[in-house]
């Protein structure tokens, strides 16, 4: 993956030198061996901090929204899955295409940091990574470690059968094949939940939602959530609380409300980057929740994965007389 890093730095330096972008938003090595941190390069001298490893999990596209009301042009590093978020923001008129330079990296899958840290000491320094197709070789100052992809990748990556970016100004590095097994059932986890009877399914979500801290990490990391002001966070005094869906209070009922509101709001917008589940501090399997709606939208309305095509009309802004409505 050294070539990818070299080329990424070269392109970032070029963009910053010619002054065509304010920032190159990419990744830096994080504070342990199995972590990458989002990094904003502002001058060519900083590009050597940019890196590309199998720990570049964060979806950086969300950061574009921080600059939506500015004049700045930005470059952002994306994986295939993240690139769908760029299209989504364009579809929602939240960021103009001409203000973003998409640096797409061909991604062979991201490693599950817990699985890596079970083997490699967190304090080890990551020197180089080799993508050998079926596995990654991590070269560190404490030796070399091989991780077989089918054992050690994130679940979402094992379901990835197309890693080609859907939007790109520049594809950086060598093309690698997608890590998912062809024909893999992307909705297997959803189907498993569907097979539970209603009481068991209800108990499953009750258990998870009762832990929710309402820290809003799922919302804040989510590229589908691009409202300037969130309906779940309107500061109104108590006597006006009736006009709000939710108060700050946490309870099982209100937590359900929170998650179901978010679920409906990301319908047709969720690109399945899986960031919500990654950031949740209390392990709520949020990806399964949103994918259930995506699966229904696909089966009932023929909706494909959002973000594939910038011209496509988002699900909740379209209507056809033939749409199924037997629940009405």
């Amino acid at each position, binding site marked *: 993956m050294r070539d990818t890093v070299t080329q990424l730095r070269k392109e970032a330096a070029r963009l910053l030198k010619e002054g065509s972008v304010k*920032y190159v938003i990419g990744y830096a090595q*994080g*504070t*342990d061996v199995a*972590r*990458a*941190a*989002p*990094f*904003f390069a502002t001058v060519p001298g900083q590009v050597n901090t940019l890196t590309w490893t199998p720990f570049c999990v*964060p979806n950086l596209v*969300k*950061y574009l929204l*921080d600059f939506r009301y500015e004049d700045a042009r930005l470059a952002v590093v994306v994986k295939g899955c993240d690139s769908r978020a760029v299209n989504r923001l364009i579809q929602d008129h939240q960021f103009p295409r001409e203000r973003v330079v998409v640096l797409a990296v061909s991604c062979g899958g991201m490693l599950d940091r817990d699985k890596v*840290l079970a083997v490699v*000491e*967190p*304090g080890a320094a990551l020197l180089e990574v080799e993508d050998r197709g079926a596995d990654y070789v991590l070269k560190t100052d404490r030796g070399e470690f091989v991780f077989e992809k089918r054992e050690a990748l994130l679940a979402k990556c094992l379901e990835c059968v197309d890693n080609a970016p859907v939007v790109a100004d520049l594809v950086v590095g060598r093309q690698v094949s997608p890590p998912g097994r062809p024909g893999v059932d992307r909705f297997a986890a959803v189907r498993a939940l569907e097979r539970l009877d209603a009481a068991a399914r209800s108990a499953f979500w009750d*258990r*998870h939602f009762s*832990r929710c*801290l*309402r*820290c*809003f*990490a799922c*919302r*804040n*990391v989510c590229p589908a959530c691009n409202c300037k002001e969130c309906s779940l*966070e*309107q*500061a109104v*005094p*108590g*006597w006006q*609380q*009736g006009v709000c869906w939710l*108060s*700050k*209070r*946490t*309870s099982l009922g209100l937590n359900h409300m929170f998650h179901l509101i978010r679920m409906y709001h990301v319908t047709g917008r969720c690109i399945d980057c899986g*960031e919500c589940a*990654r*950031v949740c*501090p*209390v*392990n709520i399997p949020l990806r399964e929740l949103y994918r259930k709606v995506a699966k229904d939208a696909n089966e009932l309305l023929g909706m494909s994965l959002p973000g594939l095509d910038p011209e496509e009309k988002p699900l909740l802004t379209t209507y056809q007389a033939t749409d199924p409505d037997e629940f009405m």
Partner: protein
Amino acid sequence: MERDRLAAFLDQIATRYHLVAPVAEDGVVDYRRVDDARKVVLDELSTVPPKTHFFPQTEELYSYSTVTGLEIKEIVGAPAAVLFGVRPCDLKGFLALDPVFAGRFRDPYYWSKRERTIIIGLSCTTVQSTCFCQAFGGSPVDGEGADVLFTPLEAVYLVEILTSKGEQLAAEFSTFLGTEGVEEALRGKEALARELDGRFIRQVDLEGVKEKADRMFDHPYWRRLARRCLGCGICTFLCPTCHCFDVVDENRGDRTGLRVRCWDSCMFTDFTLHTSGHNPRPSKTERLRNRILHKLKYHLDRYGLHGCVGCGRCVAKCPVNIDITKVIAEIREVD
């Protein structure tokens, strides 16, 4: 106490006290009321700190009704409780919270639980890669803030009685405790402390950090640091010393309702938003600066206590790797 008697000891406590201890669910450890000691998790730091016992995320203060005149029902009193398995860093967290709730207005909700609770600390036997309690004068075997400290050794727990509340508990459950081998256990604890001391990966140097923080309110560093912040509440909600809250009324529409206080977070957009629309911390820069300075400066200014205890939860859980140990190093470095 012999190690295999712990479960029986806790079960016995649960028959007389409201027993709160760390339990696991779907890989998340938090402190909950337990009635079966076998569920207690002894070998990891909880995801959510035990401050939840004294300062729950949502706390009902009173309910009201205006159906027939104004009726207010206050929710007062707390059950006699034993909070078991509190780690040294979290004990320090309680000590950092105490003065906040004991200011000009002594907080009856916090103190009713604080005073009625006996705290059993639990020494650590491992050091996680995110731990840095040493930086703030802590140690994996430091029982300061506990009434009783349990230190797990080979075959026994060394049980140290630290306060009069601890003595009361020890007297009540004396059948579980023996005095044989105490000398050896004390030596065992010392050996454990020495061993753990060398296992910290994160070396955090606070030299000059407070003085630097005093003068860097307007430093461009905060803007650089805040660029990648998502503005979520993870770092504050998982912090054993964060204590901001908001008071909310919930009208039910039938002339009844309740007043609750809920955790708030300085990382949220609407934190301390004024009714005029003015926001004193309008962007992520001011909000993140507030959090970091609260940990490294404001708490020291106000109470002479560190606002961080080095538990490492924010380091472990921040989705974008804003790592306070690195922030401390960077504060020392910047001009």
